[in-house]
């Protein structure tokens, strides 16, 4: 296995341990241990991203493994930083669901094939646009994980077993902040993509189907922010829209090209 493959496997194992630790969540020291495991996974993913780029000679969104590494790193780092920054979530973040998601994405680095054609070095601006898009999609992954946590929490509370879970208002606030950050990053990435497509081809459409998936996810993420004002059941609508947006963003960025090809033939 390659160096980046080992880094990805180590990151996945650390995240799996964080998932187990976060799910158990008993005792005062557990949350800090989980936080340490996430930080370790983030370091391993940084190495994976760097090694993948070095092996290719440059960072390119045309390499599915680099996209998976970028998404996994975004999920872990955003979950860590937003969790620590949030006044009440502290070590919790989006909870174990985000760890499981990031572990799955880290394994994609190993499972996805290397590009079969020679990649061309993308322009710097195009790279910046893609990095922002991946950051936004990863943040949306954190928001989607929070939505899933809210759903599981609601199911457990209805059975009288949700006492150890964070309060609903805290989770909704975390969801709102994560979704808002995702909107900013995705919006900035798409704006750069549109501007670059305009400069190069004259059309607002860059021709990459993954950007259309990202645009659809952005629209739903913005709708999720607006839904948070609906009043009654606003939380459900906001969480559901954030969850769907996360699925669209991650599916589109990892498999958007394949979906289009599968539908063409």
């Amino acid at each position, binding site marked *: 296995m390659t160096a980046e493959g080992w880094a990805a496997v180590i990151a996945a194992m650390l995240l799996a341990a964080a998932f187990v630790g976060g799910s158990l969540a008993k005792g005062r020291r557990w949350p800090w241990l989980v936080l340490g495991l996430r930080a370790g996974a983030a370091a391993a993913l940084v190495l994976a991203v760097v090694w993948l780029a070095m092996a290719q000679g440059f960072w390119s969104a045309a390499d599915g493994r680099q996209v998976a590494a970028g998404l996994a790193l975004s999920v872990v780092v955003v979950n860590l930083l937003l969790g620590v920054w949030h006044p009440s979530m502290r070590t919790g973040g989006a909870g174990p669901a985000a760890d499981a998601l990031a572990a799955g994405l880290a394994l994609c680095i190993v499972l996805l094939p290397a590009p079969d054609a020679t990649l061309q070095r993308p*322009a*710097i601006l195009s790279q910046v646009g893609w990095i922002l898009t991946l950051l936004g999609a990863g943040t949306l992954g954190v928001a989607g994980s929070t939505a899933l946590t809210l759903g599981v929490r609601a199911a457990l509370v209805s059975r009288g077993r949700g006492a150890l879970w964070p309060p609903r208002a805290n989770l909704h606030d975390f969801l709102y902040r994560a979704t808002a950050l995702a909107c900013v990053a995705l919006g900035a990435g798409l704006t750069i993509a549109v501007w670059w497509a305009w400069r190069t081809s004259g059309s607002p459409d860059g021709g990459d189907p993954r950007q259309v998936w990202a645009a659809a996810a952005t629209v739903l993420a913005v709708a999720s922010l607006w839904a948070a004002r609906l009043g*009654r059941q606003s939380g459900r609508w906001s969480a559901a829209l954030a969850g769907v947006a996360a699925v669209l963003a991650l599916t589109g960025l990892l498999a958007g090209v394949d979906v289009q090809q599968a539908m063409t033939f």
Partner: protein
Amino acid sequence: MSEQSSIPGNSRPEPLSLVWRFFAAPPTLLVLAAILAAVLIVSQVVPQIPPEAADDPRAWLAGQPGVLGGSNGFLQALGLFDLYHAPWFRLLLVLIGLTLFVWAIEAAEIAWRASRGRWTPAQLGDVTLWSRQPLQVRLPSPLAPDDTRDRLDEVLAGDRYRRTEVDGLPAPGVVASRRAAAWWAQALTFAALLLALLGLAALAIWGWEGKDWRPAVGEHWVVGHGTPYSIRLDAFSPAMGNSSGGSAAGRSESQVSWLEADRPLHQATVSAGRPATWHGLTLRQVGTTQAVTIRGSNQAGRPLLFQSADEVASPAEEITIAFEADGAQHLVLLPNEDRFLLFSLEQEDMEGQPSVRVVLLSGAGGERQTLGVLQASDALRVDNLTVNVSLAVRPVLRVDHRPGMAVVVGGLALAVLALAIGWLAPPRLVWLAIAPGIECPTLVHVLSVGGAGQVFWFSGLVARLREALANDR
């Protein structure tokens, strides 16, 4: 929150109509956004008619296989093969535009009142209608109304809220806002998205794009579309090495002249990502391609005749083919030899160098024989014939007129900026009505814009207010 009640002044005053209420309702915007997202995804699932097939879409549709192919009459009836030009899609964009306009006005009104502190009970009702179901809670206070007001004022001042006295509500009260300027960011988000939408509309109505042009140096191109201009390629310098990096050293460049009636008007240099604009027209170098020039002779040294099977042209001793894209193929007939040559452009290799495969088709069965895979000019032997193949790189140039693109990009950038401000510094707005209570000396009615995203900070503020009122000094 725990205690809910109807809000006074919640009825929308005239002259706002039902149409305005419809577009101002959050569900309207949510449904329209969900439909837009669904359309974007469907456009990635159902094959869309490409711009180059716009002249004859039926032929393109006939060539699409599978369940989602052109034979699916239901999809055709819905216009799903050309989603972005379907009338219902344009109607959707118009509805989204109207909704954004109404929301921009509503948000601007809130921002103006929040920054000026000018509120009446009816206006508060308008805002709470906008947020549909406001957050509210009643706090009993053991203090007299004036003392209660002082205590609340201390907490709000400590949290850096700006307070404005308001007569009315259920009782005289205070409107408190924090980071009021950030309310303008919300209005700016809607206005900027509307601006981007208007830019797209301008693009669709007045924009056009010319066909790709693959010229040799010295060739002319008439721009058309009602313009008097033509373009001439004066010089072309191909990229050195891997061309797509965008680095100055590796970038291919085209020097062109804009002409009017063969009179040079303006000279420009274009390359990938560096277009040249002249009187609202933009010339772009959208790529490079290979061109093949074919000559040949027979054993006696007489020139061979060649005829392109793709164009209506008489046989010639020298013909030139410019490839459209990777994988493109061109068939060339040798009229007097009963043979065909198939030229196909293959993908770039590890060094970023494309190659041209030359295949001989001969006999009644169309037997194939690869004559060579060329990366440079070469002479090929076909039995007793010699075919000279010269390779050259040409630019792919395109002229377009995109009157709204700057507005689209500017609108999107502004919307992102406004979203970022809203994320970094979320605005807060809260109303407090202070009135004598029945079971306690004073009852404080706390009210704010509703929604799950607001509960966290509102709960925190209410907890601090409750603590201040309970604190017996």
